């Protein structure tokens, strides 16, 4: 994992409270965080804040499948935030796809995490998503490109938290696979997330120079 692979700009959307522009390989997404703000009374919970993730395709319309991705992002983000600190409020996260060349879900999740960090909203933990593909010969490719995904027999997106112990937050898989190869992928992806977290740290360092 290096700067070549993950690129990020923080706080580029002036009107939002936090934003991140992330490109991973060639897949690019923009995430903005607004809030906490006062929501409609129907969404208002007395003891915690609500998190609302909206996923937008560049074409504007989204499909049933995108709705599932949106759900995954929402519950992953919600779990990471200390929502109890923001009662009766809502936090809106908008994920805009700019270019999709594979690993979309992982990029979206990492970008959301960076945008949430930028917004200064209190978090329990950070999260990092890693995708990996398994070839016919049972080879594991981390962060595969579009071609490798299409020719793979299985393809996973795994999300781990930044806690020192191994905590799997989200798992999304496609294709057929055996249990043992899944465990191998978990090990590899978990190791890879540590690099993502150090990338996060570097981003914050850069950002704070001006502070």
């Amino acid at each position, binding site marked *: 994992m290096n700067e070549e692979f993950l690129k990020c700009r923080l706080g580029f959307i002036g009107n939002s409270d936090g934003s991140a522009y992330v490109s991973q390989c060639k897949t690019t997404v923009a995430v903005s965080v607004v809030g906490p703000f006062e929501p409609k009374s129907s969404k208002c919970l007395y003891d915690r804040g609500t998190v609302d993730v909206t996923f937008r395709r560049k074409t504007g*319309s*989204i*499909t*049933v499948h995108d*709705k599932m991705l949106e759900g995954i992002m929402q519950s992953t983000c919600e779990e990471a935030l200390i929502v109890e600190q923001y009662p009766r409020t809502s936090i809106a996260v908008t994920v805009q796809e700019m270019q999709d060349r594979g690993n979309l879900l992982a990029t979206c999740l990492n970008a959301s995490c960076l945008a949430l960090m930028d917004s200064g909203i209190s978090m329990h933990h950070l999260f990092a998503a890693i995708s990996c593909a398994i070839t016919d010969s049972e080879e594991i490719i981390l962060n595969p490109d579009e071609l490798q995904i299409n020719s793979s027999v299985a393809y996973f997106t795994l999300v781990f938290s930044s806690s020192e112990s191994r905590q799997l937050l989200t798992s999304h898989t496609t294709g057929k696979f055996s249990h043992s190869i899944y465990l191998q992928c978990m090990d590899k992806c978990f190791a890879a997330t540590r690099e993502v977290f150090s990338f996060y740290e570097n981003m914050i360092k850069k950002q704070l120079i001006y502070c």
Partner: protein
Amino acid sequence: MPTNLYRFQGPEGTIPYQHYLIDKNNTKLTKIATALMKNERCDGRDISAHRNLCIKTGIVTQAKGSAYVEKGHTKLLCSVFDPKEVPNKVEYAKTGELQCEFKFATFSCRQRRNYTRDSEERQLCNEFRRAIEPAVCRGEFANFEIQVNVLVLENDGSVLSTAITAAGLALMDGCIPMYDMIVASSLGIFKNTILVDPTYDEETLCLSWTEDEENRGTVMLAYMVSLEQITEFSQNGSMDINMFPEYVQLLIDQNCKINKLVQSAAITDVIGHFESQTTD
């Protein structure tokens, strides 16, 4: 493929393969028609007999009350929920509202139905609501609404009357206060012959256009037996005015029969509940 935000949808302009077996269907209808002229029905029933009624209450455990009713091949499920606040309401109302939804499952009819509500569902929903509204003590939950939902799993004729009977049972199962039990039944009239509880094919026959002056069509009546009140009456077809008293009387008699079945189901329910309570 048209992108639909909510569901996976196929191409437009699909045709059910049964259309290419239309001749077979027509022969079947002709057969039923000729049999009916001899007062014989395709399922072996007497023309004045109901199909078997199978009642199960309380099967939707997540709802306040529910009833599953099977009448021949017609199968449907009705559930009711607790009174809740009417969204976006400003004024206070002295009577509660019934919020009804009448939905056919996509596979419930000969032709695949759409997900969105069509005009038939709307019409049935209106009639359905009007039929059960007089039976519910709406003053007891003023300013609130009770949701009554019907899902038709299979349509083999007399859907509306079966749905109303099911709603009566579901409301009772949910212990929603009611002035009376509500039951409904329907008739099909084909060439002056009166058919009790018509099937889908018989309904099609009764409503198909003919030149002659003979009576034909369908009649549906919802009735509160103890209070002797008709809550909903609808008719379609071409009928002589003088026949109406006969139809109405026949439907009332049928409703009394169904009411007995419904009542015994209700009583079994109550006994079952209180017995299980005493053994606890």
